[in-house]
């Protein structure tokens, strides 16, 4: 996809989401200063390990959790949290969840599941026509065959298509997909991803795809944002970030993929805890570059431990929040 210079469709500026700690624990800063732009017709992949705040960010973008601070702007207007404004907003932005089986009410037929959005928004036109069209667009053809089925009568891939159809029927401008294929079978996965790509070409839909699977980003995304502990630490075009990662964390993520060449850099320790974010660079405690002394050699070890490397802008330029990477680039 060629980059355009039109203003982004959705922007998140300095977004924070903090969950109060339970029973005396510290509050969890699940999203901790995120800057992100999604342009019209762009597919952005948000990757990161488990618990880094991807889902929370996605929910915040939809207004399902209220950010503690920061702002989300959609098509130039800042998001409001009154229920009326939210409803209008949610007509234009749709969410697709990881687990299609769970996303469908087992008591609703496919028809009802798809028509739900229309009913909520008081759709005036021909409901049935809209539903069948959305279904066929999502690849369930002929749609009549599916209308009366219940979710349990569908395969996983079909269910995810129903969910996508339910989102499409409202003709949204942006689709936020939270791990849309993670629970699907390997063989079905490609089909759904192909569908997303097709929708982009056919309808000009933008998408934010949340995933922990870098291969998925490679498959469909234009741009990738790597998230670590509530913050985006590296962002840039897919080819660039995945072929020449600059942040040690991105490197490590790529290196542990089975097919990747070279020795895997397995990060020690458990996934980090958003209620205890380390000072300085939030990655420094697990950073292999710091551990191997390379950062020391680059003269940034001190900064790594004490200085926050900042937040990369959410725009199209490749950026990285790493003292060492910047030092190298500068060198």
């Amino acid at each position: 996809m060629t980059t355009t210079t039109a203003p982004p469709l959705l922007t998140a500026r300095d977004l924070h989401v903090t969950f109060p700690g339970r029973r005396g624990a510290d509050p969890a800063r699940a999203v901790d200063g995120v800057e992100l732009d999604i342009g019209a017709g762009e597919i952005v992949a948000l990757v990161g390990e488990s618990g880094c705040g991807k889902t929370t960010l996605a929910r915040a973008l939809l207004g399902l959790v209220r950010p503690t601070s920061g702002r989300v702007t959609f098509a130039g207007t800042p998001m409001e949290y009154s229920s009326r404004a939210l409803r209008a907003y949610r007509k234009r932005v749709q969410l697709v969840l990881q687990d299609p089986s769970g996303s469908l009410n087992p008591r609703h037929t496919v028809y009802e599941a798809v028509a739900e959005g229309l009913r909520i928004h008081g759709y005036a036109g021909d409901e049935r026509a809209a539903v069948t069209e959305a279904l066929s667009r999502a690849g369930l053809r002929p749609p009549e065959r599916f209308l009366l089925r219940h979710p349990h009568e569908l395969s996983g891939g079909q269910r995810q298509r129903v969910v996508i159809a339910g989102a499409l029927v409202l003709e949204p401008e942006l689709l936020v997909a939270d791990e849309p294929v993670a629970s699907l079978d390997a063989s079905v996965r490609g089909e759904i991803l192909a569908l997303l790509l097709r929708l982009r070409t056919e309808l000009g839909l933008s998408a934010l795809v949340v995933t922990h699977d870098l291969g998925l980003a490679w498959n469909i995304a234009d741009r990738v944002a790597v998230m670590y502990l509530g913050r985006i630490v590296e962002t840039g075009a897919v080819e660039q970030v995945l072929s020449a990662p600059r942040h040690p964390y991105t490197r490590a993520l790529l290196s542990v993929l089975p097919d990747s060449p070279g020795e895997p850099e397995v990060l020690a320790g458990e996934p980090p805890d958003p209620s205890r974010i380390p000072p300085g660079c939030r990655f420094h405690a697990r950073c292999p570059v710091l551990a191997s002394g390379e950062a020391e050699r680059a003269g940034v070890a001190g900064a790594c431990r004490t200085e926050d490397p900042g937040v990369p802008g959410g725009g199209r330029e490749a950026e990285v929040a790493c003292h060492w990477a910047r030092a190298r680039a500068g060198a």
Partner: protein
Amino acid sequence: MSTGTGTGPLPIRETVAPATTTPRRTRTTRTTPYLHYVAGKLAGALVSLLAVLITGFFLFRLIPGDPVRTMTGGRPVSAEQLAAYRREFGLDLPLWQQFTDYCGKALTGDLGTSYQFRTPVLDKITEALPNTLLLTGTAFVLYTALGLTLGTRSAWRHGRLGDRLHTGLALTLYSVPSFWLGLLLVIVFSVGAGPVPGLFPTGGMEDAGTEGFAHVVDVAHHLVLPVLTLVAVEYGQTLLVTRSALLDEMGSDYLTTARAKGLRDDAVRRRHAVPNALLPTVTLIFVNLGRTVAGVILVETVFSWPGLGGLFYQALSVPDLPLVQGLFLFFASAVIVMNTLADLVYPLLDPRVGR
């Protein structure tokens, strides 16, 4: 706050997952979460007790009529005497003051004086309490043991003949009114019916004038039928709850793991399945004490057992308001206390809760 179960009617279908949030991974320190948990539960219990106290007061103020007149039971009483009674029972004070007095007294264990016995209510309660404890305690131990054993067996071999028989019997006995069963037992085993001789005493707890070992045997002899009645109507509940709790666990992967380790079948059941199935059951058992309390009222009435249930029945038919109110408070608080105990014990059984 009690864990998510009901005193219910039929707990078979209770969702036994502790409804209170169970943080799975709070690892800040070892002890404070438990203390937090305990504090929460105790606070909850206190609130409940307070609610009981308030209800106890106002519920019985709803009764139409003048308590003093009830107290004198229609005997000719001079106005002076009535006034004296009113003063004695604090009924001449404004309602709010009666309420504060009542609360203050209740907190110090003074539940007022029974109209009919002219004895402090607390004395009547402490007098009857050991007898009730003996009856319910014995029944409780027996029906819990029976319910647990048969329940686990039924679930483990569910669908088999034994399971069907046990569940069937449990359901049937569960549907039988306890007082009716008690009466039938009296007819058959006390009065003697047909070839069955009257084996057991018809009522009461003891015969006058036995001492020592003979007295123990005597009481045990009197205990048989009431306990049998209580056990018969109550064990089904435990059985069914245990059974469904265990059935829920039956498909669990950790059981397959245990089998894969080469454990024998009954070791898998005893060591792995039962402890997990027990957790929901334990809460339920405690919560169901409320039901047992109710059952005791009927059984004690049918078997002339000199316990709290019988006392309650007597107090009701007068009605002896301070006694009814006191017993109400007592029953409710006892159940609340038991539930709180269960809540406090629960984390000791289930490491996932309250840590």
